[in-house]
């Protein structure tokens, strides 16, 4: 192979990155991509959060049976949101995760349960993500993202930041963290021969940064606008 081959490979890489936006931009690890042990590891790590979420919901539903229906409809809403084309500053379109919005509105534990269901439906109905990678995807999208978004929102309120800024930061970092955690998951599963996980993390982070950074900003802006609209309702 010579440098022309490399150039062609890079070109091909760029082509795929921009020609298959629907998939490349959604930060779901695809079916079968993670080795067995890591699939199991992330699933086991996610289960306590899921159980916690189910317990919280169950308790609340006993007092208020309408909550179950609200959560069901909210899950459908999150699914639609994730399938929606989002205007992006780079001109291309992709999916908002809705992580920040959901966490602020329903709390992070309920969001975990809704998140697993939405991810399962995305895997089965849209072929985004997968069953063997459900644990890993849940951890990044429906555990790490919502919890951080929720904490940042609370922190922002405590610090007396303006509401729009807290909402923006929560959505922005919620989205960003999702992408960081996914890169981490991939890096741990496939450490580089030299430099190990750390090098690998940098590789994955930089590959996905191209698309994920502008998206996080988009998501932040959009969540703020939606939040303001909702307030006026």
């Amino acid at each position: 192979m010579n440098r022309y081959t490399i150039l062609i490979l890079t070109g091909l890489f760029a082509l795929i990155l921009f020609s298959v936006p629907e998939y490349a931009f959604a930060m779901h690890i695809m079916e079968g991509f993670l080795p067995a042990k890591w699939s199991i590891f992330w699933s086991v790590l996610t289960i306590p959060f899921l159980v916690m979420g189910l317990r919280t919901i169950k308790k609340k539903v006993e007092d208020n049976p309408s909550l179950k229906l609200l959560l069901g409809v909210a899950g459908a809403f999150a699914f639609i949101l994730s399938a929606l084309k989002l205007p992006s500053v780079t001109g291309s379109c992709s999916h908002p995760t809705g992580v920040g919005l959901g966490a602020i509105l329903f709390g992070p534990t309920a969001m975990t349960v809704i998140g697993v269901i939405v991810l399962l439906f995305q895997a089965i109905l849209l072929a985004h993500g997968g069953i063997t990678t459900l644990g890993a995807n849940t951890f990044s999208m429906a555990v790490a993202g919502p919890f951080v978004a929720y904490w940042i929102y609370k922190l922002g309120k405590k610090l007396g930041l303006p509401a729009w800024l807290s909402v923006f930061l929560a959505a922005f970092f919620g989205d960003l963290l999702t992408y960081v955690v996914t890169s981490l998951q991939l890096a741990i599963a496939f450490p580089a021969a030299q430099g190990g996980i750390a090098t690998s993390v940098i590789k994955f982070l930089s590959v996905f940064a191209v698309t994920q950074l502008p998206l996080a900003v988009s998501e932040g802006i959009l969540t703020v606008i939606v939040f303001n609209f909702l307030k006026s309702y």
Partner: protein
Amino acid sequence: MLNIDQLAYANRLRYVHPVEKFIFSIVTMGLCLAFTSIHLYAAVVVLMGFGVLALARIPWQVYLRLMLLPVGFLFIGVLTVIISVGGTGYDWIYRWDLGPLSLGIRHTDLVLGLNIFGKALAAVSCLYFLSLTTPMVEMISVLKRLRVPALFIELMGLVYRFIFVLMETAQKIHTSQSSRCGYATLAISYRSTSQLISSLFAKSFQRSAMLFTALTARGYTGDLQVLEPEFNYSKRNIGMIVLIELGLLFTALMFGGSVL
């Protein structure tokens, strides 16, 4: 958008017991995950392709498009694994020196990359076999048999139903906005999208309240019990599944199969 859902209700394997289809695809997927063997992966891709195209009679154009869908992620992921940055002294197939750093492909990484590629493709074809032959309603009832908590099952059922209700609403709002010149520029797109999202959210909220009223009128107090659809197991199918899985296991062990 929900092509898979539509096909799942109309395919030729629709009335095969969902548990049989579920076990077949999940066990096969498990084998792919457990073993590293290109032969196994190839066998699974062919097998599932046969199941989807010849038995379930899914149009090949649709199946091809679905198989290409995850290719974007697959290429990026695999290339990121294959290409490494590093010094000298490894089994480089090719190296490109950039001053102190060098960028290149190592032999072991290439093998690893190819394995990941094959495994992911095989696993995806298992997922497609399941999702293209088994309607979601039946998939949920399989999960119920697997003792997944009732609350989770009920929420899944609600989410599934309301995906379609809300999607219709979202489409109507989108059409209405487009017909009034929404999405004309980037700024207008932002405004239109956020109006769509917030209006959809408000309508979702109203819907859940109306649904609560309607269900309460039928005696809802917190549980969403329903009758399960009935299916008959087929001894022949179960026998076939056992044979196929044993065959795949044999393939995996015979042809360079190593357990990860």
